[in-house]
């Protein structure tokens, strides 16, 4: 057995802290209430429970731990609730309004248009007399006296707690930004200072600046974690505590201390990363991941075992250059409300009942029918087994709510519920189709990994509609984020904007490769990754000259040097042709290299944890544990459907649809044309009948 020590993964949620211990090929889990603001107490409590479940005390286990990963929404919450530090911004004179202009984007609220709120007050933005042009040439030297004066004004008059510095073209020539930071650090040694180019040297000043501002805003959000790291060290943990970042990897506390913003989207990242692990365990290199939350259906995808990433996007209402796992929230969630619009059309969402009062069936005073009510009334959800039986649901309340909505259309309660499910299903299918289109993915090559809420009641039909071969539902779904934290690779990115037409001067590209590799390796070493586990991959962001958005092209780990980008261009053209077809490039468009990225990976070596622990067994058909009536058709009587309990199944067990399977905290639906099989990793595979 390839024993690489124990792994611990933690997910600090709003209510519960989940812990997962993976030890000697088995997974143990525990939940404990989250404790705020000192999250460490809740973490230690959850760890103790999980350790005990594994048969050892935490003190015994900790020295054996080779990976301790933690996901936290601490930074996410600070940004979402707008409770960060008071930030001042220094930028190039003439462009002080950059944040207020917000690229002229507006939001729509109740039929009105509204400006995008800025995290920085206008009078806490100071323009500095300096200018660099597109080539990095200095047009106006930095006025250093102004920098100090501006710093004093921000600190003394505006009382800021944190300063961001972001000048035009600083990613081409960072000298002015660096010198400004030096002056500020010397004058205000205790003040956190964020430099935009240092944080992320990429083109587009607006999103580079918003990222710097968000970073400045989030300083201090993670203080509870620092003391936790010390406590764990004292208790015997020999490896550094690593934190899950938005890109689906981990970073050290030391880096987070200076750059907290990387954690902003760690929750969704951990979920998709864990889903990719589930897919990989079952031998799927490509997959769509589907997470049905309370308000939306969140879709991402996995290519070659790695979650898809984006380099920029909307972060809680703010457009910013945060690289992260690319999750799109679309369509309806479990709490989405059904209603009749003025045209007499049945609609689902976007309004959601939230957790209070919640769907009518929660019995907390809700009277509007949510998607969950429809599923309950139709028989897909067993009222006694919701959330693993922790909550008993009121079917009659669902019936009353559905009836009320359907009355004006002349629909019965059940017919209304059927319609609600159909419309929600259409929305989820649309989301999956859009995902395939945006990334030019072939449906037939992608399994669906389903987790969260009651998503598995839909995903088999989504898969069928889009032509995906199968759906994977992991028994671990309820602690997937903690599982992700335990298994996530260390992942550190270094990027260099080059912005030049190809072919170009070979030295510039070669230097970028060499230096980026060195930096990435240095990052990995600092994060405690042993040299043998270090790996560096490269990507290039490419486009045709004039295009807005780049296509990310994977490059070999050992790129050919000295060819001035010929190899990169070839890879780009091939990728472009694959995505858009031959018609897209009639004229000889000029290829432009925008940036090169090095990705340092510290492998967790977790992928071989399971394969030897549980052997593969042959399939055998098993009998159901019971039957439940489900309203499959719009009208008429419900159909008796076989019901299974995943914990009763052993690997290799298989059965045909129609069937319902209670698995973990959720239920999966197997339509008539499909069958389900429990695989060796206790993942349920739903696919077309063989």
């Amino acid at each position, binding site marked *: 057995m390839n024993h690489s020590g124990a792994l611990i993964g933690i997910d600090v949620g709003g209510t519960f802290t989940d812990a997962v211990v993976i030890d000697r090929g088995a997974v143990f889990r525990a939940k404990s209430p989250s404790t705020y603001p000192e999250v460490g107490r809740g973490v230690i409590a959850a760890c103790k429970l999980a350790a005990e479940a594994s048969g050892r005390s935490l003190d015994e286990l900790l020295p054996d731990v080779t990976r301790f990963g933690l996901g936290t929404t601490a930074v996410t919450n600070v940004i979402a609730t707008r409770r960060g530090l008071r930030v001042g911004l220094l930028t190039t004179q*003439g*462009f*002080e*309004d*950059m944040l*207020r*202009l*917000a*690229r*002229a*984007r*507006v939001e729509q609220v109740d*039929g*009105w*248009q*509204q*400006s995008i709120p800025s995290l920085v007050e*206008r*009078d806490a933005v100071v323009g500095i007399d300096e*200018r660099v*042009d*597109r080539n990095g040439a200095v*047009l106006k030297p930095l006025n250093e006296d102004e920098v100090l004066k501006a710093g004093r004004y921000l600190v003394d008059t505006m009382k800021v707690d944190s300063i961001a510095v972001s000048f*035009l*073209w600083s990613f081409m020539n960072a000298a002015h930004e660096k010198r400004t930071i030096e002056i500020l650090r010397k004058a205000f040694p205790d003040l956190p200072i964020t430099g935009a180019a240092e944080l992320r040297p990429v*083109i*587009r*000043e*607006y999103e580079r600046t918003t990222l710097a501002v968000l970073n400045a805003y989030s300083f201090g959000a993670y203080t509870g974690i620092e003391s936790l790291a010390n406590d764990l060290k004292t208790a015997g943990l020999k490896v550094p505590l690593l934190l899950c970042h938005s890109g689906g990897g981990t970073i050290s506390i030391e880096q987070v201390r200076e750059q907290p913003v990387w954690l902003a989207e760690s929750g969704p990242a951990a979920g998709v990363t864990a889903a990719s692990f589930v897919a990989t365990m079952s031998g799927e290199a490509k997959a769509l991941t589907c997470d049905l939350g309370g308000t939306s259906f969140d879709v991402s995808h996995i290519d070659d075992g790695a979650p898809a990433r984006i380099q920029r996007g909307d972060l809680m209402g703010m457009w910013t250059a945060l690289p992260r796992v690319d999750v799109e929230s679309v369509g309806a969630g479990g709490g989405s409300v059904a209603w009749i*619009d*003025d*045209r*007499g*059309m*049945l*609609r689902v969402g976007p309004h959601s009942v939230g957790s209070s009062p919640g769907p009518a069936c929660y019995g907390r005073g809700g009277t509007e029918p949510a998607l969950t009510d429809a599923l309950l009334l139709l028989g897909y959800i067993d009222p006694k087994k919701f959330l693993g039986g922790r909550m008993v649901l009121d079917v009659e309340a669902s019936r009353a709510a559905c009836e009320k909505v359907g009355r004006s*259309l002349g629909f019965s309660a059940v017919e209304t519920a*059927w*319609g609600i499910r*159909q*419309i929600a299903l*259409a*929305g989820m*299918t*649309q989301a999956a*189709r859009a995902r395939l*289109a*945006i990334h030019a993915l072939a449906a037939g090559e992608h399994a669906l990994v389903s987790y969260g809420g009651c998503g598995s009641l839909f995903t088999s039909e989504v898969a069928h509609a889009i032509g995906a071969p199968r759906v994977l539902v992991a028994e671990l779904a309820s602690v997937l984020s903690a599982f992700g934290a335990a298994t996530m690779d260390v992942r550190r990115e270094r990027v260099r904007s080059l*912005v030049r037409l190809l072919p170009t001067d070979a030295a510039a590209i070669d230097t970028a490769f060499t230096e980026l590799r060195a930096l990435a390796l240095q990052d990995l070493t600092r994060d405690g990754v042993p040299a043998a586990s270090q790996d560096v991959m490269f990507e290039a962001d490419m486009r*045709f000259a*004039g*295009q*807005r*958005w780049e296509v990310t092209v994977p490059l070999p780990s050992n790129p050919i040097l000295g060819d001035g980008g010929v190899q990169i261009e070839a890879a780009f053209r091939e990728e472009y042709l694959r*995505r*858009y077809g031959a*018609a*897209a490039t*009639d004229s000889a*468009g000029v290829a432009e290299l925008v940036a090169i990225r090095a990705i340092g990976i510290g492998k967790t070596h977790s992928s071989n944890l399971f394969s030897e622990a549980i052997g593969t067994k042959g399939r055998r058909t098993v009998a159901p544990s019971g039957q439940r009536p489900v309203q499959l058709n719009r009208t008429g009587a419900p159909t008796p459907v076989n019901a299974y309990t995943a914990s009763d199944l052993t690997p290799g067990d298989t059965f045909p649809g129609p069937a319902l399977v209670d698995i973990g905290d959720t239920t999966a639906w197997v339509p008539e044309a499909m069958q389900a099989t429990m695989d060796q990793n206790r993942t349920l595979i739903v696919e077309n009948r063989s």
Partner: protein
Amino acid sequence: MNIAMKQTAVDPILAEVIRTRLEAIGQEAAIAVEQTAISPIVTESKDYSVVICDAKGALVLGKGAIEVHFGAAMHGVQCTLRRHHNSIVEGDIFIANDPHSDGGLHPQDVVIQKPVFVGGQLVAWVALCAHMMDMGGMVPGSSAVHATECFQEALRMPSVRLYRAGVENTEMWELIATNIRSAALVTMDMRSLVIGANVCEGKLVKLITEIGADTFEGVAHTLNASTERVLRERVSRIEDGRYRLISWAEYGPSLYRIPVELTISGDRMVFDLSEAPPQVPHFFNSKPYIVQTVIIPRIRALLASDLPINQSIYNVIELTTKPGTLVDCVVPAPIAAAHMDAALAVACTAVQCLQLAIHASPRAWGRQYNTGSQLSAYGTGRWSYVGDGYQRNVFTILDGALGGSPAGHDRDGIDMSASLTPWGVKLEFSDIEILELAYPIVFHERRIRHGAHGYGQFRSGAGCEEAFSAHGTDQLLGNMTGTRAWFASAGLAGGTAGGTTSFRVVRADGRVEDLSPQSTGVQLAPGDRFETRCATGGGFGDALDRDVARVADDMKQQRIDQKTAEQVYGVVFAADGTINATESDKRRAAIRADRLKRATPPAVKPPVVEKLPNVEALPLYPGVVQYGQYAVAEKSGAVLAIAPGNWLNGCPVITSHFSKGDVKAISRSYLDPRTGAILHLSLDRADEGVPMDIQPARWAGTATSVAAE
């Protein structure tokens, strides 16, 4: 050719499920366009759109940031059907750009159309529109402000085939490429629309094959019929009557007067533009379908923001025009800004007529969206320079389209938006770094314009202000188009008019040259600085009613200085620079009293009324209500007029004349005779009488009707 058309309603669940799938298809086509187009005007400013029509060219669904394209795309399909009816086959792809015939909001917008066949039957159409950087003609960028005929403006294409039965019509591509500048770039943008059309058509074929052509038609019919029913019901809740305002189109200092009269009669809504002047030898003549398609997204935001956009809204909103006029021109009228200038001014005024009608209708839907007139201003520049190999490269800076919105009845306007409600366009700035990377320019500043707001109890938003120079080229050559350089956008309910558009050049030696918004051949050498300042909408309510805390915040936000605060808002500052509220109240009272002293008496002496009738007060205009036959200032109770008189004539008036160039203008403050508060502040050409006329039938005492179609 066999056209499938069966119009039976389908079940609402099925309709919603299929609508969702159609949305997905439109979205996939839009994604394909955005990912493959080249020019920032498509990819960054998202100046493109995708529509799905039924077999007869009626709109089923539109996608993309520019809703104003939808009508042009439909028009294109309908014209193609007429022109090519019997010869349309599977695999054809058509292109059109000529607004006089088959398509385009202006010649730079091309409409790519592809019929969708299932089982040999024509079952649907897809059409995609986008703005091209150049379509040929006498100036780079094809906005020829000095053109006197459409023949000078651009290559004109009626609906012609780019592909015939799936085979590329290479001769057409060659013809296009021969006649336009930056041909490599523009044809790649056109190809991105072809790709989008193919994606859309492919997915539609799959869907319609699955559900059947009858079901598809049924869904289209159901979506349209159910939306039209709601729209008509909402129109019928607006008080019958006539609502009239004047719009102005500018050409340099020449003003063209286009009255807009809205008649509401039952569930019909008709905009009468028949008093428009004859067509002009300038580039902003327009066509009814273009005016309609510019109006519709704006009206949708007021009346149907919760409804899907489809054919029904085009059915409900009717226009009356006269051929040969500025808004219904014929060849050879130049037409390069058919959707801007005059059409835009008319559209904003039409929407304002509707807003006033809605305000005067207590039962109307959408009364909460009560704002000043949407901003019809813009100011854009097309620049060119000689690149490698003598090629003249063209680029457009759209930032001048970003003015500040008018104020609303309960809120300040917002910056960088023509309206407080959505208006069918979602333009975004490109980052400075992206512009400087793509073009030989360097920016000195880009900020929100200081001052120049429409003031009032609620103020307008601010427009953009920016300056750049040539950098990396010896010379930039530019031509501008723009509006509202002479005449600002008026306020509502006593708010002041907004700021005007301006372009100017500060030469390297310090000379300042003010430019007309229609300038060509503007030369910039390195060191010369080109400046754009955007207009803003008007304010809402009397500025003296503005909360002093809001005035203080405007100063903190660096929108106004202390002098403006004192002069416009009548606030008094203490020695420490804070506002003294008590002294401000006193000063404001003194200003109101002084206004009444300076005012000329009402044109029509209001009736003396002992006691107002004991009836419900009905709204006439923000701040003015109707008690039975009397129009009364809402706050003071002062009687202004007896029905059917125009209440403006019952107000004391302060008149001021001013002129800019040859334009002589008049501003009138209509006062509450009891308090001196400004009830309405108008801005008109000096020879204009009382231009605003709000006549709900219950006030006018007449039933209105419009001729049956």
